[in-house]
């Protein structure tokens, strides 16, 4: 796709609820959380701080995760009310979906109550945020596997570029349940044996570790004292035929943004320790970015359909603080951090590129 985004669009606030201690924006992975398992659970916030008490009990966990991350983000940016809310979710509110489905089957379609059905709707997270902050603006939810977050980014950039919004609350939410973990285990997604997540990349094998989280960003057409980074551009590649095709797409993507491969200060890759999905990351990194420092991040957040949003959170923090946390095992230290490129793929099908630049 030709044409880069013309306006410079800034990330002026972040809120990240993840398996790491990330919701407190003063921290930056000083004490990485490790678990000996094949599942990384997001650390629940004290949701009463974010949701009215009468709502906390009934609200599904993914909604609470989303609201906590979104409100943290708005507070971080000092923004009372965004012009639009645009979110991405891979599987949506699966806990409530399972609840309603299970009750329906067990009770043979009788004696059902509506709460789980109502909350199972895929746009519930962005709708509840709108309700809580009373945002009447544009409100979209993208639900496309490894393109869910990327589509939301693209729409957010367009909304600001075409002047319909000055600020957009952009975010993701995905939750893991015991049942979804079990189903995906049977599909062969996860490691057979528990592994220390922090050592995931040291022990490549079949399967990865499951993750979840809710990550929000406040995008703004104006730079201010809270600015983290420029969210420069995004690109999605659906079922590319080869690493060569991906490399040529990356080249075109960087060119339209006025830079080349050697201008990238840090390459964040979505590798997840699964040997079946590693080859393409290696081919791209070695083929296009032989001298660029690179590292993975999914040992911190686990693998899930919107995990790339954790990568963008990481990139935004790195850019703002101009330092890379130790836990990231960078191949070599970059001299300065001007452009960060995130290359991710989900199941080899949804490949994406996200470019962030120094403001």
């Amino acid at each position, binding site marked *: *796709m*030709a*044409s880069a985004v013309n306006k410079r669009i800034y990330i002026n606030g972040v809120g990240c609820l993840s398996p790491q201690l990330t919701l407190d924006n003063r921290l930056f992975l000083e004490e990485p959380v490790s678990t000996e398992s094949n599942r990384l659970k997001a650390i629940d916030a004290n949701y009463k701080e974010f949701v009215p008490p009468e709502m906390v009990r009934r609200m599904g966990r993914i909604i609470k995760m989303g609201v906590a991350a979104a409100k943290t983000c708005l507070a971080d940016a000092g923004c009372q009310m965004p012009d639009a*809310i645009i979110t991405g979710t*891979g*599987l949506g509110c699966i806990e409530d*979906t399972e609840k*309603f*489905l*299970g009750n329906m*089957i*067990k009770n*043979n*379609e*009788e004696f*059902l*109550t*509506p709460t789980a*059905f*109502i909350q*199972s*709707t*895929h*746009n519930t997270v*962005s*709708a*509840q945020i*709108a*309700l809580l902050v*009373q*945002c*009447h*603006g*544009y*409100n*979209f*939810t*993208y*639900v*496309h*596997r490894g*393109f*869910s977050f990327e*589509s939301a980014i*693209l*729409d957010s950039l*367009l909304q600001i*570029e*075409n002047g319909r919004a000055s600020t957009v609350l952009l975010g993701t939410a995905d939750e893991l349940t015991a*049942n979804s973990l079990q*189903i995906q285990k*049977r*599909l062969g997604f996860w490691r057979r044996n528990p592994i220390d997540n922090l050592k995931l990349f040291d022990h490549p094998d079949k399967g990865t570790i499951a993750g979840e989280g809710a990550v929000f960003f406040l995008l703004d057409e104006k730079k201010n004292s809270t600015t983290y980074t420029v969210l420069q551009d995004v690109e*999605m*590649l*659906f*079922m*590319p035929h080869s690493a060569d095709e991906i490399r040529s797409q990356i080249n075109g993507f960087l060119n339209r943004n006025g830079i080349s491969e050697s201008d990238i200060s840090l390459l964040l890759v979505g590798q997840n320790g699964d040997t079946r999905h590693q080859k393409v990351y290696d081919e791209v990194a070695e083929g296009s970015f032989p001298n660029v420092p690179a590292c993975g991040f999914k040992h911190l957040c686990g693998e899930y*359909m919107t995990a790339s949003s954790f990568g963008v959170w990481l990139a935004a923090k790195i850019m703002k603080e101009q330092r890379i946390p130790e836990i990231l095992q960078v191949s070599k230290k970059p001299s300065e951090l001007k452009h960060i490129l995130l290359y991710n793929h989900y199941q080899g*099908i949804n490949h994406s590129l996200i470019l962030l630049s120094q403001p």
Partner: protein
Amino acid sequence: MSKRIYITGIGIISSIGNNVPEVFTSLKASRSGIGEITLLNTLHKGSLPIAEVKLSNAGLLDLAGHRGSDQFTRTTLLGMIAAKEALKSAGIEDVNAYRTGFLSATTVGGMDRTEVFYKDFLENPESGRLKDVVNHDCGESTEHIASELGIRLLVSTISTACSSSANTMMFGADLIRSGKVDRMICGGTDSVTMFTLNGFNTLMILDKRGCHPFDEHRAGLTLGEGAAYVVLESEDVVKSEGKQPFAELSGYGNANDAYHQTASSPEGKGAFMAMSKALKMSNLNSSSIDYINVHGTGTENNDLSEGIALERIFDPVPLFSSTKSYTGHTLGAAGAVEAVISVLSIQHGIIFPNLLWSTPMKELKIKPVTEVLTGQDIRHVLSNSFGFGGNNSSLIISKPV
């Protein structure tokens, strides 16, 4: 924002027809697709009507041009049939002759198969055919359809409840205007499932007699299934190909009611804002709208809230009808189903009625069109789609100039 976005192709499958000509025939004949459940395996068979596509999955597979494969969900099959028709009607042979993307909407994705899986899975977490659950997520149908059409450039899925497929057209048009693509196939697909039927039933908003939109004695909606897609093309493509577009997507707006997760605000704030945004974008006065294809689900709450918003914006309120009385509420497909019907209204100068209507709502001054009106000069149609989570969308579809 000066460039126009044209609708150059349409495709549809619903309870009133498996393609555009069949749907058009049913619309003209005031023939509703609402009736007794025949295919869905549910306890509510015989007590709750729905608007089913009267073909088994095997029949749909045939229609989609596939044989002997059970890899597709019903949602995928419906979408494939309608999307292929849309491409064909746009005269597109080589889909990649221009930069083309595919945006689809769905509310429950592959739920029709997940229900089958889950029954076994609940009894034993090691059982249930994995084939039946890998298609659960909303992106699955989109990817199968995109692959069938040969589209790889930009493929994504929107799920904002009952406004989902209207929203694909907004994003699609924005993408064309941005210069990232030349054309987009936009729309949505949803099959009826036990999950949605029971879900709406627990909310007590399913009318046992079939929906009666904008009627004083309305008692809820009727679930339907189907798929519809439109081909959106840039002004440049239309000019260079010398195409005669069916219609223009001249304006659109999305707003959030921010009132309640499922209910609409009494004053229809979100609806009012969405319609106002669409009018503003199209540079039209409210008096320019010749016909409104209302959301009109037939629930107590929606029709009152939407009606109040209409009376606030329009004076007088133009001719309007809810064609959900034909197709049922097709959820994620509804916005596209109604966009296709709106295009047919413009093309043929016909307003299709709001069936099953008898008594005006006492809170409103307005009443819908109840008979087929032919010979109308319809220049601008407003089509509303409102969803859970206060998601309100309005499209303005115009006769091409």
